[in-house]
């Protein structure tokens, strides 16, 4: 009797499992699709923005896919994979973070249809892998090589990346800045080693984006300490970056200095003066005339007394340098941070032609120009009329840097405006016809899914999407590889002639990452909640 029951139970649970696997897959797919739908409207040059109000009440307006998704706090575990996907694209290519999510969403809905036809998930997954490999080949063929020394070509790619952002009207100004910035820090021999951390964007409220500039040298966000009437402009500067404090040493909390005699009071005061004076004199003796002091939480970085002495010695003081900034500053100035007064030697100083404090709007900053040696870093001073705009400008500039970096890594450009995706779709459709079995089905579905990009582009621009996409497909079948949607004029035209181009790396990485993510979601057949 027991045995019979067991068998029955087993059979029941097995059928339940099958049911469950299907449900889990469906729920995963629909949750992920919802994420893709959420960012869909911000794709392309005419895409719209999202406003996110964080719990503290801060407002963020952006149309950068990765930024929006990371702020959205998605709950569903599968949906979270899409959020990570856009993050991955952000790290890998920096741009196309919306594109990658939209493609993944479209591929997932293709999966739904395929699953409905009874095709096994593993089959779909393998077919997609095959399709993406073929897609890369097609893209390689469609891409055109670019000479990274050709500044205008690189600028065009950066401008395309910027065209979809809030700051699009300033693309003509920001694109050259981004290109120059990356070119300056790049080592053409080792394109993989481009470290975007060597570009620093300083945000200053006020003015308009038109006032944004690339600065040759170093810009510090801090202001000069003038409470003792110190200098604000030093020509032929010798800059020291110090990590110790110029204030009276403190005893430990448990210890006290005990004064029992009135003459000792005089000594306490005098000793303090003498101690600080000695520090300042040692600094002066090395020829240093600009002092950057790291922020300290344990002690005051400077005291009234030391500021007073330094001002008298005509040494400019910039305080509150953050710990994280030290590396960047040391790299830009070719100097060594100095940890104690005993190691304060002239060899550790940086030579700079001019250090001066300038005021921008209601704020101040310190500019250092004419740094000796090769520039390893650049600073960009971004201006904007409000904080939302400024933050978005910074994000957009980051995207532009990434685009330029991608171009340095892989020196190919491909037509934008949906041209690349359509070309792949048309090519894959041809390949699908040579295949047999379920794979043919899947590859064709993959190809059709890619058309979501031109479709969405047209839709976001307020154009009749079906007419546009069918015409686009037609043009590609006839061999016009670079035909894409001209969003401004509302028709199909040659994207390369219109200068709408993007790095091959961005498109390839978007396709590859999206496919991988979809394959992963497909293979999940159970969710186990653990505590």
């Amino acid at each position: 009797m027991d045995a019979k029951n067991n068998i029955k139970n087993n059979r029941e649970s097995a059928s339940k499992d099958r049911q469950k696997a299907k449900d889990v897959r469906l729920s995963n797919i629909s949750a992920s699709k919802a994420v893709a739908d959420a960012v869909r409207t911000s794709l392309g040059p005419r895409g719209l923005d999202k406003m996110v109000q964080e719990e503290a009440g801060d407002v963020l307006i952006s149309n950068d896919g990765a930024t929006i998704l990371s702020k959205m706090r998605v709950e569903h575990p599968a949906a979270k994979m899409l959020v990570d996907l856009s993050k991955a694209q952000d790290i890998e290519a920096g741009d196309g973070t919306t594109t990658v999510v939209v493609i993944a969403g479209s591929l997932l809905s293709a999966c739904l249809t395929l699953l409905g036809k009874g095709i096994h998930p593993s089959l779909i997954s393998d077919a997609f892998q095959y399709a993406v490999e073929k897609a890369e080949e097609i893209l390689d063929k469609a891409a055109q090589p670019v000479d990274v020394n050709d500044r205008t070509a690189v600028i065009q790619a950066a401008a395309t990346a910027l065209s979809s952002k809030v700051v699009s009207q300033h693309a003509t100004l920001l694109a050259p800045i981004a290109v120059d910035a990356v070119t300056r820090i790049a080592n053409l021999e080792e394109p993989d080693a481009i470290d975007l951390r060597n570009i620093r964007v300083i945000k200053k409220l006020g003015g308009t984006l038109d006032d944004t500039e690339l600065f040759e040298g170093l810009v510090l966000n801090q202001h000069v300490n003038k409470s003792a009437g110190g200098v604000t402009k030093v020509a032929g500067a010798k800059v020291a970056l110090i990590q110790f404090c110029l204030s009276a040493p403190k005893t430990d909390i448990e210890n006290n200095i005990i004064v029992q005699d009135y003459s000792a009071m005089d000594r306490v005061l005098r000793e303090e003066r003498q101690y600080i004076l000695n520090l300042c004199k040692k600094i002066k003796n090395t020829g240093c005339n600009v002092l950057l002091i790291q922020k300290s939480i344990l002690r005051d970085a400077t005291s009234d007394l030391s500021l007073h002495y330094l001002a008298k010695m005509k040494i400019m003081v910039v305080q509150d340098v953050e710990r994280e900034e030290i590396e960047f500053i040391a790299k830009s100035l070719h100097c060594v941070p100095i940890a104690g007064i005993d190691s304060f030697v002239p060899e550790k100083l940086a030579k700079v032609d001019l250090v001066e404090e300038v005021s921008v709007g209601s704020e101040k900053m310190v500019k250092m120009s004419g740094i000796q040696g090769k520039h390893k870093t650049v600073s960009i001073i971004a201006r904007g009329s409000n904080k939302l705009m400024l933050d978005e400008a910074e994000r957009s500039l980051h995207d532009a840097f990434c685009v330029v970096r991608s171009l340095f890594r892989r020196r190919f450009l491909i037509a934008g405006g949906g041209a690349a995706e359509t070309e792949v779709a048309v090519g894959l459709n041809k390949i699908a016809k040579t295949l047999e079995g379920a794979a043919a089905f899947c590859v064709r579905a993959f190809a059709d899914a890619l058309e979501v990009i031109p479709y969405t582009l047209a839709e976001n621009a307020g154009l009749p999407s079906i007419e546009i996409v069918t015409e686009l497909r037609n043009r590609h079948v006839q061999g016009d590889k670079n035909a894409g949607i001209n969003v401004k004029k509302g028709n199909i035209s040659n994207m390369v002639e219109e200068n709408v181009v993007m790095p091959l790396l961005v498109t390839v990485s978007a396709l590859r990452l999206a496919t991988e993510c979809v394959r992963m979601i497909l293979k999940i057949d159970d969710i186990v909640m653990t505590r």
Partner: protein
Amino acid sequence: MSSLAIYGERQSGEDVRTQNITACIAIANILRSSLGPVGLDKMLVDDMGDVIVTNDGATILKQLEVEHPAAKVLVELAQQQDEEVGDGTTSVVLLAAELLKRADDLVRRGIHPTNIIAGYRLAMRESCRFLRDTFAVSVEKLGKSCLLNTARTAISSKIIGSEIDFFANLAVEAVLAVKRKTEVGKYKYPIKAINILKKSGKGARDSQLLKGIGLNVTRASQGMPLRVSPAKIACLDFDLRRSKMKMGVQVLVEDPKELERIQEKEYEVTKSRIEAILKAGANAIFTTKGIDDAALKYFVEKNAIAVRRVAKDDMKRLAKATGASVQLTMADLGGEESFDPSFLGSAEEVVEETISDDKFIFVRGCKNLASGTIVLRGPNEYMCDEMSRSLHDCLCAVQRALESNYVVPGGGCVEASLSIFLENFATTLGGREQLAIAEFSDALLVIPKTLAANAALDATDMIAKLRAVHNAAQLDSNKGNLSHMGLDLENGHLRDNLEAGILEPAMSKIKSIQLATEAAITILRIDDLIKLKKKQEDESGEY
């Protein structure tokens, strides 16, 4: 649409846009009735019970604590206009809200927001070009009366409008008094150098412009002279009280006599400092910190004025004007304490004067820079506060007119003319932007409309007349003089506002059109609003 599970609320598409726009219009409606010379005031009471009476747009919005994120954009807009221009804060908000309202209508008629944005942007650029190239009149051409008129226009809408000539004069004189040349040879009018002191009592008319720097402080002791001349000024940023030992230094005595000596020593240190300062020749000593009562006698003996607790900003201004350098300590490079005469600044006189019941210190004839002080009088504190805000707007307007050198006639004249210009411009375009530009042109009319409505005039009638006149002016070159026609709100008809002296700085108008359009576009571009919920404390480990 499938549901997307996020920790919070999400709205998207048409709903969000309409909701955002409604919030913005609500903000604008609050300000609507305070626009223009006959606009009314708002009384704001905060949770502490403090009262502010004002009709300055930026001030009202700052106090409102708006919560809606889109409405916040408008509040920021007013703040920005206040910072960059200083005047026209109400009109910029009205314009932005009107642009949004019309955009919403267009979207409902099936025009994609991106087309509207493109149209607005184009319209904005064209209007600024039109204003700059053809409409603005240079200050030189109009002569000095134009400054006075600009000041009058800025004041006219404010609480001090009843004393319009008086305050316009005051403002223009004050701004001209602080004129200075920069390194590049341009003239600057830093209105920061104008100090505004508020004192209730007497009427607004008893406000006065005084030369020199006025400080809201008194002599430290009655025994000090009321006036020193010529003054040698020492600016100190340290305490002249009994010098206490630093933290971590403990005084331990066993003998009571020792205690006395230590106290004596503490006085001694301060005394020697004061003596060093006086020896350097200072006869007016200002410090941001305190002075011990016991130490005052040293100053009295030497017939010097000592002033304690001077505000830091005042101190900076004082040091700049008199050429003094603010000293943080008296230590010298020998490791001892001394005071060098070169730290002193000089002025013709430092004097304590009584205005109403209160005493003020005035520093006149400063060596380096001219500066002015306006003492405002009024029946009560709120009035004085509002007067100081109004005067600030007015000073800004005069400064802008002087620095940007161009003015435009006010009273709805600019807006009417731009509206006609844009309407004609729109018809030359074939694209979808045409509709947006036409709406932009209509939206501009919100300013004359509101002006007329606030003045209890028939807005529809007045606008029709105004538009007819401007249309004629732009079509027929013989009637070019008609282009300066604007509303006369007192008499309810049209007049040449350039002649009538209703002037505004051109830069203020251009900026407000730019800023309003930018803000409207920012809001229009939003099609999704995600509000995140607060994370519960106990859940924080799980996510």
